[in-house]
């Protein structure tokens, strides 16, 4: 196979960090080439160089054997390189066809002037979608009304409308339901048959085995190796990615379970907290399972005072307390690592130092003022303790990889020295290495006597980490299992029960089978 795209000795330096160092990559027409690596390994930088967003500091890019240099994403697009990013870049207020032909709509003559020909655009959009075996999408609908899966199909159609020969897909399945994932795979296979080269980035290794022909692994900005998928295994890839073998993704330590620290009694906050009661004991990790929309995060947010309870009791150390806002919850030693780190967990435009100290500003004062020295040393020690990959405490959080961002959120809450730690999807969207680290940390904290409530959609995580498991459905706790009695089947049955038959339940079943690389 002749390579359509070749990259050699690519390096890229950002202030204080070498993002890519002597990396190579090549792909043939009609190949699905997976790009793997932990968060921060340099995958995103590499695809941004290929798609013209960044310019490499050193090395060459060859397209069909010819050395090229892209100054803008548009130049790369014109050479047939299209990218589908994690955050989809469509205009929600425009129609499917308008989005597909944004910037290159067909034109027609209207008297002396040229105008955009939306009739033709609609027809061509329909044709492109049909060529992808997509027949159920109305091209005149607004993007904002579509599901994530459909939006992604529009993105792909957009890339094809630009005659893309190389398609870069950055974690395309991260937000998809199981049915959508299957459709996506079919489309990818279709494109491969047509000779389109696809660079596929995903954290889900089983997808790589299902879809890819070859796989290239990066680690810490360096090239580790390229292998045909048929000659490798999951364990092999994981050890290439992390540079060591992860012998245990769920390092659960035996702990001494102590006295109840937090107890809630028939807590109500409509619509999704309906008479919830449970206890949390010192040294214990309690897993809270349930489908999306079952009320898991909602209960956590009631306890943390984001949406205070309408009725019911919260007891700390057996004494009833009032929690009307997060500040009060924090005073009682409660910390909440929220589900969405981008909007809830972090102020991403601010520095690591400023994020870490945000929960303890009052505690690190000297007089009226923030003690800068103390603030800096707090951030430094957290970076060390949680092994956050950053060049300084002054780095803006936005520039960190997902796993490292999550560690910043966790360190913010560790800084508040909580006694009760609620973690909502603590490892969503982060790589195996960071995941194992967060699990180990959680386990150590529990052994030090913290009470941990862990909300997770991943059953292997729930099973692997919890001393006790609560299952929620419809805003209520419907089942409780000890670590010994819990199995995937029993939890899944409790989560869905006989009444569950809606779309949400269906999409969630995917998560049950998914165990990443455990």
């Amino acid at each position: 196979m002749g390579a359509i795209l070749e990259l050699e000795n690519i390096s890229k330096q950002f202030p204080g960090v070498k993002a890519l160092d002597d990396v190579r990559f090549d792909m043939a027409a009609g190949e699905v080439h997976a790009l793997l690596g932990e968060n921060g390994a340099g995958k995103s930088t590499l695809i941004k160089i290929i798609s013209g967003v960044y310019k490499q500091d050193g090395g060459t890019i060859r397209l069909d054997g010819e050395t090229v240099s892209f100054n803008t994403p548009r130049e790369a697009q014109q050479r047939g390189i299209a990218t589908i990013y994690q955050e989809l870049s469509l205009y929600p207020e425009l129609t499917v066809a308008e989005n597909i032909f944004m910037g290159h709509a067909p034109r027609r003559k209207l008297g002396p002037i040229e105008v955009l020909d939306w009739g033709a655009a609609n027809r061509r959009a329909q044709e492109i979608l049909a060529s992808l075996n997509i027949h159920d999408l109305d091209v005149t609908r607004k993007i904002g009304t579509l599901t994530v899966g459909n939006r992604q199909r529009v993105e792909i159609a957009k890339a094809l409308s630009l005659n893309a020969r190389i398609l870069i897909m950055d974690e395309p399945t991260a937000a998809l339901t199981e049915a959508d994932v299957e459709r996506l795979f079919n489309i990818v296979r279709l494109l491969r048959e047509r000779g389109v080269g696809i660079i596929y980035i995903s954290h889900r290794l089983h997808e790589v085995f299902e879809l890819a022909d070859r796989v290239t692994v990066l680690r810490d900005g360096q090239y580790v190796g390229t292998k045909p998928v048929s000659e490798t295994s999951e364990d092999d890839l994981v050890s290439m990615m992390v540079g060591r073998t992860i012998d245990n993704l769920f390092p659960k330590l035996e702990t001494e379970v102590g006295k109840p620290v937090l107890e809630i009694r028939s807590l109500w906050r409509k619509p999704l907290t309906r008479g919830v009661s449970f206890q949390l004991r010192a040294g214990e990790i309690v897993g809270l399972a349930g489908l999306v929309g079952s009320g898991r995060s909602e209960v956590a947010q009631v306890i943390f005072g984001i949406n205070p309870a309408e009725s019911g009791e919260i007891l700390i150390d057996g004494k009833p307390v009032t929690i009307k806002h997060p500040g009060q919850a924090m005073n009682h030693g409660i910390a909440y690592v929220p589900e969405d780190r981008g909007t809830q967990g972090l102020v991403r435009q601010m520095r690591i130092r400023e994020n870490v100290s945000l929960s303890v500003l009052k505690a690190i004062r000297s007089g009226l003022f923030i003690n800068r020295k103390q603030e800096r040393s707090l951030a430094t020690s957290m970076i060390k303790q949680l092994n956050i990959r950053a060049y300084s405490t002054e780095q803006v959080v936005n520039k960190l990889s997902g796993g490292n961002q999550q560690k910043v959120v966790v360190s913010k809450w560790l800084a508040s020295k909580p006694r009760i730690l609620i973690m909502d999807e603590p490892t969503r969207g982060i790589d195996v290495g960071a995941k194992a680290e967060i699990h180990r940390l959680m386990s150590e904290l529990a052994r030090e006597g913290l009470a941990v409530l862990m909300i997770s959609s991943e059953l292997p995580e729930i099973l692997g980490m919890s001393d006790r498991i609560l299952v929620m459905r419809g805003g209520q706790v419907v089942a409780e299992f000890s670590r010994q009695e819990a199995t995937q089947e029993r939890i899944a049955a409790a989560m869905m029960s006989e009444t569950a038959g809606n779309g949400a339940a269906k999409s969630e079943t995917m998560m049950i089978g998914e165990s990443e690389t455990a």
Partner: protein
Amino acid sequence: MAVTERPSQLTEQSNPIVSRLRAVVLSKEGILFLIMIAAMLILSLLTDKFLTTNNLLNQLRLVTEIGLMALPMTFIIITGGIDLSVGSIFGLSAIVMGFLWQDSGWPLELAIIMCMVVGTTAGFMNGLFIVRVGVPPLIMTLATLALYRGMALGVSEARSARGFPDWFFDLGQRQFLGIPSQLWILLIAAIIAGIVLARTPFGRGIYAMGNNELGARFSGIPVRLYKLAIYTFSGFMAGLAGYIFTSRISTTRADMGTGLELDVIAAVVLGGTSINGGSGSIVGTMIGLILIQLLKNGLLLGGIKGDATIVIIGAILILAILINNLVQRRTGGD
């Protein structure tokens, strides 16, 4: 202050003092300061009446009221909000003071206190509706811009209050230790506001809210309380400014301060505070305030006609913002 201390990422390895200096000079505030110095030099070539201590001090006297209101406005704009009603609060507070004294026979001292009470209450009402009812600040203060002005007109019935006793003019028209009296108030208020914004948990919370309000709330920052505080503070400062203004011009009318909110916002935004929230500083606001006033005055003294003055000022403001954006992008500032 906090924002100017951004260590330049490009000079990480060089001498810390040099790189620190470089960071200060290349910060938004630093560039703006250089622009101001350049403008002053050019204006002083146009006329020798411009660059005199007397003239400069007098110009500062004239902007004290705007400056006082620009302090809370900086906080508000950093949180991503806006207060359009300050001009109206300014007018309402002053007219209430004037008529409490002139018509209702209150002691003037008490009327002055009421001036600030009225301002504070008006600001508090803004904050309360923004926080409790969730009205966007732009809408709420646009409404009270009209409402408070209407109340001022109602109180005054198109009359003015005048004939204040001589001591009343001490603050607005005289000097204290060789400097216009009201300038002391602005100076002290600006220093306090600057330190609060840059160094205290409250100030940090203001920046956090402006960048990500939900994230700030999830971190335990009392977002609503802080908002209520800054809008109330804004009302108080407008009341104080109304009193100082009345003392300066000796009389008060209901249409006083019409359109003043735009001058206040212009100073804040020119000073580098992002209208989208999240960044800005008191130092910047003060430089912005002074730059605008010096341009007005210098061009006037230089004999440039009124209409042309406005055009030149507008052009220079745009230029200043462009230069700053360019420098910030070059140096990797955000």
